[in-house]
């Protein structure tokens, strides 16, 4: 589904990713764990196509196509979704307007008919209910005045509405208390399917208690240092990142 080969990327001329190799098959959930500054967020932005992240070497193939050649909106239409670590506030744009524009843009690019207001409302109501979100949150401007938990639920709602084939969850647990984390994790787990793959990026093992991965990778110094099963996460929780030469104050 997605095949990352020898990916090198720089930000402001500084090399952050130094040769990432990662292949994720259909239905698989992979977790990338790593300390601060290891390149976790850079990897997610490079995959989503953000300006300012320059790929200097390597390739990313997404369903056989060159992902790095695509505009961010084309990647979204192709089925890639990034759940942001820091969801962006957009004053003046209602959450529903945003969701509807996004869904119909993607449907249009896929050659599917656009949903009218009634069809859209029906769909979005169903999804918000599952995430314990209110209609009022849909009417508000995108992420404006949302608590940390509400923002992450809003990200999950977008994922539920857009139904991506591959979702990157960038530090979805950051800023969440345990109750909020459970709601978000439930929402994410409900989206797990044999066709949908996920890449869960996190610093802490805690999230992986709720979203249980098939594979765990340790990212440090811009490279994947070690890969294993879910037990690797537990090991990291116990021993920290010290064995990878990372000196982190707990």
């Amino acid at each position: 589904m997605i095949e990352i080969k020898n990916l090198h990327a720089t930000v402001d001329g500084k090399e952050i990713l130094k040769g990432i190799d990662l292949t994720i098959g259909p239905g698989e959930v992979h977790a990338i764990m790593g300390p601060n500054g290891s390149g976790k967020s850079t990897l997610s932005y490079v995959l989503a196509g953000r300006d300012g992240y320059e790929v200097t070497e390597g390739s990313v193939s997404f369903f056989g196509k060159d992902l790095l050649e695509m505009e961010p909106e084309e990647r979204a239409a192709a089925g890639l979704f990034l759940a942001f670590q820091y969801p962006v506030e957009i004053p003046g744009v209602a959450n529903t307007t945003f969701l509807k524009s996004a869904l119909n843009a993607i449907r249009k690019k896929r050659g599917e008919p656009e949903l009218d207001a009634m069809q859209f409302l029906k769909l979005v109501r169903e999804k918000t209910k599952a995430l314990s979100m209110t209609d009022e949150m849909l009417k508000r401007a995108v992420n404006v005045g949302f608590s940390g938990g509400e923002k992450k639920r809003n990200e999950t709602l977008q994922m539920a509405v857009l139904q991506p084939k591959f979702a990157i969850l960038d530090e979805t647990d950051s800023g969440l208390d345990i109750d909020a984390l459970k709601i978000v994790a439930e929402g994410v787990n409900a989206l797990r399917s044999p066709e949908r793959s996920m890449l869960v990026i996190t610093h802490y093992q805690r999230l992986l208690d709720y979203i249980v991965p098939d594979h765990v990778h340790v990212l440090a110094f811009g490279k994947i240092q070690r890969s294993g099963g879910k037990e690797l996460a537990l090991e990291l929780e116990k021993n920290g990142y010290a064995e990878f030469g990372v000196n982190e104050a707990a």
Partner: protein
Amino acid sequence: MATTTLTKAPRGYDPAAATPFLEQFDRVRDGLPGGGLSWLNDLRAQGRARFAELGLPTVKNESWRYTNLRALDKLAFQPAAGTGEAVRFDVLPTVRADGATGPRLVFVDGRFRAELSSTAGLPAGVELLNLADALTRKPDLVAEHLGRIAAPDDQTLVALNTAFLADGPVLHVPRGVTVEETIELVFVSVGSEAQPTAFHPRGLIVAEADSRAVIVEHHVGLGSCTTLSNGVTEVFVGAGASVHHYKVQREHTDSFHLSHTAAKVAGKGVYDNFILTIGAKLSRNEVNSVLDGEEGDTHVSGAYMVRGGQHVDTTTFIDHAKPCCTSREVYKGVIDDQARAVFQGKIIVRPNAQKTDGYQQNRALLLSDTAEIDAKPELEIYADDVKCSHGATVGELDDDQLFYLRARGIDKDTARGLLIGAFLSEALEEIAEESVRDAFQSYVANWQNAR
């Protein structure tokens, strides 16, 4: 002994620029309406004399530092020759629902078009007519108000308008009357292929105590002939009256649009002005609102969207002359390509105007590296118990917001459009009338689609 007379022009004016306009005035003078009224002839003569003395303002003039009118004297505008009178219209702009009608006055190249106008839906006692007719039918009403707030002696373009004043809308709402229907004033610029054309519409709005009216001005252009509209409107807001005065200017980009609106608000009166500027090569909207009675309230706001080589100037003056009044100003604009915007907002709080509450905000969004805004807020406060704040920001589209939208599948142009619309919506929210707000929103959306 030989004497040399040196005529020294006041600094910041170019009297020579007056000459072509004065020659035209002297040609058309005898044909202007109301020629039998001596007070009117005096007023026009005053306007002519003052304009002859000053001419057009130059960039050395503090109030015109950022807006250069030199293009005007190069173009030698002629008075409207009446070519617009033959033009037929299939559709005229409106904020009403499809097919709905209501009170409306239509002016083409400054001249009234009775067959397109209507007073249907107005309550008894309300007068809505054109100035040329009002001079015959309501001479006392006009004589009592015309030239009282917008006097020709201090503003040279008001003086020019006063010299030529011929036609325009007149509205009189008697005491205690509420006009439910929105009154629409439609100004169409047509001009002439033969030469650039100038007209000087003159409006008068008189809302007596405790009355209420909503007025929408549409300024549009037909064809692409060069025109100059130099309009002046005086608005009298009686005690406890409320006047909501909205304007949208969508002329084509070969036109020049100058406008001066002067309002005087009596105690507990409300004057609400909103101007949406989309068109014209060069436009300047001056809005003066004098809070002349206690507990008066004025909102002077607007939005503009310019691109190409357009120039838009907003110059406001809010005069807190009496205590316990509130004023609120919210201007937001989007500037693309090499377009340029000017915002000059002056608020004066007179020594006795205690408990004044004034708020001014001016924000611009630059869409290109060559777009420009010059902003000059000015607060002069002579009272001590006053709450006054102002803020100005200039920004660009937010990259984080743009990326967030694109990462959700929304293409770059649509994403930009959403963000521009969101930026302007804050200003459009200032429009209290929903039908007007919706119509203005759609003009904003159309501008974006025309990119």
